[in-house]
């Protein structure tokens, strides 16, 4: 496959001003991705700082309750900063350091990638600016304060729809302006090449660990892996190592918000079409004129009108399947996992749990399903209470 392409998807659709930096990044990534010293340093950070490998936990109660497949949870929620995002940020910031860039910018939706970036910048002594949609800063005010506590500057973006896509627009504008000093740490498997490949490579540790841990526990591969998909980095990380193993069913859960037949969803696979945006040729939610649609999900981390190009390719080739999970189903799953296993999942990851709740009972008892539990749900407790009409604090 042509470099930076996944079938017809991918590419480098960015302004000329940015091309030099994209090429520089591409060259640096090619240089370091197989460099033993770089990989060793990253591995040490994964282990000693991020708490890897993350556990693979047999959810016995849930498995029995659903009465189908044996369910394992890949506990990315136990990573430092509470989500899979740290895997990618450690990789990119280490690369930035090698490239001599000391100013890091990032976009964030739910705040998980922003918190991870602020954390690693604090660790590595780098300047950090995080762009966040103004609406998201209100939905996730705790994470805003957390980032500031870590020494980052959080910029509330109120252009456009004031959510994740606008935060990305603003981060691109910053990058174009400060290209000489600044490294753009993109939080998902999206954007211009090499980002979709590079971010996937920094996340593929998830799938590798699943393989190894499951071989130890069960002596075989899983039959099904389920992960939520916004831009799609935790899903790519979980799926990638298993793409050649065609017996492993790969399921992505995207956000159907109030339903894919309403205007309030973020279900790119179900309702999107081919387009070119945010540096990549992929699938997007857009109107017939190519204007990007405003999207909606209860989950700020899945609230994105596109999807990473490798997912678009996995979708078209049929190697992965994608299902839609509504707000209501995700909230039910959030509560279900909390009560059944004593694990509060992120509302993003709850979409994967909800998909698993549907699929597991259709599987045999000797089959194995892995749910990638991409993040923990402490950040979401307030908004779930609000969704349920429970008042837990004064505004």
């Amino acid at each position, binding site marked *: 496959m042509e470099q930076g392409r996944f079938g017809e998807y991918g590419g*480098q659709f960015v302004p000329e001003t940015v091309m030099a930096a994209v090429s520089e990044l591409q060259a640096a990534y090619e240089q370091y991705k197989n460099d033993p010293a770089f990989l060793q340093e990253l591995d040490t950070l994964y282990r000693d700082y991020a708490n890897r490998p993350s556990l693979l936990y047999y959810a016995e109660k849930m498995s029995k309750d659903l009465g189908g497949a044996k369910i394992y949870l890949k506990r990315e929620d136990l990573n430092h900063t509470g989500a899979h995002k740290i895997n990618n940020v450690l990789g990119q910031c280490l690369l930035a350091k090698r490239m001599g860039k000391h100013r890091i910018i990032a976009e964030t939706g739910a705040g998980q990638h922003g918190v991870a970036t602020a954390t690693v910048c604090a660790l590595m002594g780098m300047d950090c600016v995080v762009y966040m949609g103004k609406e998201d800063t209100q939905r996730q005010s705790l994470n805003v304060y957390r980032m500031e506590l870590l020494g980052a500057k959080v910029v509330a973006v109120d252009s456009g729809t004031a959510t994740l896509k606008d935060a990305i627009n603003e981060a691109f504008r910053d990058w174009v302006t400060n290209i000489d000093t600044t490294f753009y740490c993109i939080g998902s498997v999206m954007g211009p090449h090499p980002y979709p490949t590079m971010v996937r490579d920094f996340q593929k540790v998830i799938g590798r660990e699943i393989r190894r841990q499951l071989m130890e526990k069960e002596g075989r591969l899983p039959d099904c892996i389920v992960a939520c998909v916004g831009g799609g980095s935790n899903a790519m990380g979980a799926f990638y190592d298993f793409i050649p193993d065609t017996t492993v069913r790969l399921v992505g859960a995207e956000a159907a918000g109030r339903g894919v037949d309403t205007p309030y969803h973020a279900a790119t696979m179900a309702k999107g079409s081919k387009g070119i945006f945010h540096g990549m040729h992929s699938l997007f939610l857009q109107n017939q004129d190519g204007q990007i649609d405003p999207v909606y999900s209860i989950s700020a981390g899945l609230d994105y009108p596109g999807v990473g190009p490798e997912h678009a390719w996995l979708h078209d080739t049929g190697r992965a399947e994608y299902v839609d999970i509504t707000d209501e189903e995700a909230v039910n799953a959030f509560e279900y996992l909390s009560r059944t296993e004593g694990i509060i999942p992120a509302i993003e990851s709850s979409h994967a749990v909800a998909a698993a709740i549907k699929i597991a009972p259709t599987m045999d008892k000797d089959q194995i399903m892995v749910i990638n539990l991409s993040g923990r749900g402490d950040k979401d407790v307030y908004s779930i209470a609000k969704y349920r009409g429970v008042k837990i604090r004064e505004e």
Partner: protein
Amino acid sequence: MKNRIDLRFEECAAQGRKALITFVTAGDPDLDTTEALVLSMEQNGADIIELGVPFSDPIAEGPVIQRASQRALANHTRLEEVFALVKRLRQKTEIPLCLMMYVNTLYVHDIANFFAQCRQAGVDGVILPDVPLEEHAPFDEAARKEGVHPIYLVAPTSHERIRSIAQNASGFLYCVSSLGVTGKRSEYATDFDSFFGEIKQACTVPYAIGFGISGPEQVRQMGRYANGVIVGSAVVELVEQYGKDSSKPVGEFVAKLAQAARETQ
């Protein structure tokens, strides 16, 4: 038939002056005003006009053109209406017209059909700010088949890329003056002598400088480096201020820019 952009640059060169290229967003505040603005800018000395096709997420634009895009979209300005506008203008004027558009607003249409529509309507060039050299080929092929110039951009960060970009350029080369998004600037960090030295060596088509040129003074200052100057946000700011009544103040402003362009060697 020769492309109007080529003819106009030849005319400017023969007269020993700089080409003045101005920008407005189509449909801001409405398409009738855009039509009046194009005619007013032409009467007052603009040589080439860029019509911005509004986009929901214009990542290379500063706040002024972002807002113009939003106003145009609030009026539901669509590409087919921009083509209709160009057709109406072509009954009244032969001024070279370029579309400045984000690639997604083109891509959702069939590429070949889009450029055929450009030719039928009378569009002379298309600028795609988010398509670098590496991704340009499919657009170039379709554009050239219809006699439409795909306009390339170079930036101060382009360096060793300048040569290959310049070799592919047609119509004119759009030289981005400085880092950052569109909009006014008070100063430039770019080393223009070195930047344009490289461009001059490699480029076989005329080249014009844009991004941040906000008045006659900067036209004089920057114009000497290039064959033309591009003024966008400063015009759009007047459109924002005067709305439907903007063709007179914009015309007066363009007249001052045109005089500066005439006086610049």
